């Protein structure tokens, strides 16, 4: 070949400063310069999905709600300090009526008090910490486990697949509540146990989805191409197969978080989750059972928080699925 592609700019191609690229162009104006800083950036499928997602109003409102909730739960101690009640503080003067019943919403307690005279607003805020933490952490654990098992099962196939698929079937056929009660009675209830139990019962569903996708991706020609280049199994699994699984995995993750949140609330409701007096939406609902006829605010606000949060995650999940699904009907939305 006659010409060196980068005449007079030895460090040019790798150099990303606009100056260096400018010099290179000045030296050889006729040739397109492979200058790193000015390389044409393709719109990635993720960018396209984001553009699509941004047009989905329900999903964007949900996302805003989730971000707001996350912000509120992170700053709960600050807010509690500002409101003036900690989640376990009992308002001994005006927290209960003379009959010992919860007090309704007022200037002193914006969302009212519970049966022990504690501020419901602060407790709902603190409860969101538990819900989001357990929901997100257990989902991430479940997804990591499910992706790993599903990838291995789908990629290697044959005996490995048979064994792992049966394990997934087994996990999916477990009666989760009985198992959770048994585990808690052995190890005692704690946040970690809740996370573990929820993750344990969620990963198999992810594993099945990933396995199915891997089975079809494995047969693609680009996998064969990678193999012909000499790529090892690990590299093919994580560099070539995994990026193609991310779309379904992300969709499933956003849909799994609300399930995990409800799961955690269920455990707390049954007294199997986080130990009282630490507030969770589940144990607040459980406490309110005896009082809902006289104190509507007591079950309403934790219940509403739970409802809105799961709804937001579900709507966001739907939006993400639509945005990532190339077959979705987009003709009439653009």
């Amino acid at each position: 070949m006659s010409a060196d592609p980068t005449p007079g700019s030895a460090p040019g191609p790798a150099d990303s400063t606009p100056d260096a690229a400018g010099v290179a162009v000045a030296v050889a104006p006729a040739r397109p310069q492979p200058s790193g800083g000015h390389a044409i950036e393709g719109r990635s499928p993720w960018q396209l999905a984001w553009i699509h997602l941004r047009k989905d109003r329900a999903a964007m409102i949900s996302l805003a709600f989730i971000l707001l909730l996350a912000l509120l739960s992170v700053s709960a101690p600050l807010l509690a300090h500002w409101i003036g009640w900690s989640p376990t503080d009992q308002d001994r003067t005006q927290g209960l009526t003379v009959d010992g019943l919860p007090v309704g919403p007022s200037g002193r307690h914006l969302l009212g008090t519970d049966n022990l005279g504690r501020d419901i607003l602060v407790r709902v805020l603190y409860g969101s910490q538990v819900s989001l933490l357990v929901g997100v952490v257990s989902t991430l654990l479940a997804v990591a486990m499910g992706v790993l098992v599903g990838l291995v099962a789908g990629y290697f196939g044959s005996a490995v697949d048979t064994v792992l698929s049966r394990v997934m079937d087994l996990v999916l056929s477990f009666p989760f509540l009985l198992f959770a009660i048994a585990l808690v009675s052995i190890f005692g209830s704690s946040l970690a146990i809740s996370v573990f139990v929820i993750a344990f019962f969620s990963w198999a569903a992810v594993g099945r989805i990933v396995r199915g996708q891997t089975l079809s991706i494995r047969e693609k020609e680009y996998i064969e191409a990678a193999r012909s280049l000499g790529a090892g199994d690990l590299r093919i699994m994580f560099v070539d197969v995994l990026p193609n699984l991310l779309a379904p995995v992300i969709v499933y993750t956003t849909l799994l978080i609300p399930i995990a949140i409800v799961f955690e609330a269920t455990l707390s409701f049954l007294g199997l989750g986080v130990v009282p007096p630490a507030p969770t939406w589940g144990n607040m609902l459980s406490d309110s059972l005896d009082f809902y006829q006289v104190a509507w605010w007591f079950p309403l606000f934790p219940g509403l928080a739970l409802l809105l949060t799961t709804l937001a995650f579900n709507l966001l999940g739907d939006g993400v699925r639509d945005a990532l699904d190339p077959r979705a009907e987009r003709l009439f939305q653009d």
Partner: protein
Amino acid sequence: MSEPLMTEPPTTEPPTAEPLVEVREAVKYFPIRQGIVFKREVGRVHAVEGVSLTVRRGETLGLVGETGCGKSTLARCITKLHPLTSGTLLFEGRDITGLSRSQVRPFRRRMQMIFQDPYGSLNPRRRVGSIIGDPFAIHGEGARDERKPRVQELMELVGLNPEHYNRFPAEFSGGQRQRIGVARALALKPSLIVADEPVSALDVSIQAQILNLLEDLQREFGLTYVFISHDLSVVRHVSDRIAVMYLGQVVELAASEELHGRPRHPYTNALLSAASVADPDQAAARQRIVLAGDVPSPIAPPTGCRFHPRCPKAQEICVQQTPPLLAAAGDPDAHLTACHFPVEPGEDLTRVTATIPEEERAE
């Protein structure tokens, strides 16, 4: 441009006789399994059966045949994507038949593949730069930041804009995608490139561009090609020698012009008569040899000569004996035909009829 890509000076000499790849009695069966938990073998697809071939350094060997005749399987056996059921495979004089995956790795640098489907052979979720840089990453060549200029050099070499480094495959046309595939195959300076129908998925106008690119690269880097196609005119254009395959066997092997000038196997004759001719007068004048029936199932291939159920010249011996691949009487040594009754020049195959029993013939 060639200096950083090639350690040895590019060879411009005519093809030498030195064999680069030798395939001896290659057999590839795919088992057909049934059962849900306990799978048992209920049959076999005889994809490649007893193929012996030599690919010489610097030449282009064309492999032609109908869909399902085993040419792609043979290509994947040569590049060690499928293990051979039996037979031997020699690469640069070394027996690589029984090597494990890790033992084959050093050889992978020397033999690369270009795939048929420019849409399927590039990972849609990865950027073009990282796809072309894959060979470097896999074989641990160069640090991450060193690879980029090399990848961009390759992109320029195959006629792509190096600035498109960060784009995704979906943003390229079919022809450009095939160029990406070519760049990836060239990255490690291989000596052999197996091209599995590299142009059959492309528009005719783009086909020529890719073929010319492959030809230029061959001249520049002294590459050896195994070129698979079902398009005879394409194969004729690029190949030095052509092997015609039918149902997993090579039925005729000859230099490109020799094969087109004096096809000896009845199947080759039929194939050539079916190839498209650019001149409408010639096309109207020629007589097409229309074969009876379909290609038989490779699960239970016919006995004897595998072509006998459809062959207009078939006789009793064709049903019983498999003809060896030999130079027929009056042919040069390099022209091999596997036929009991090679077609004589000037013989009209549309006028002969087979003399084998009715039940042996295809519908």
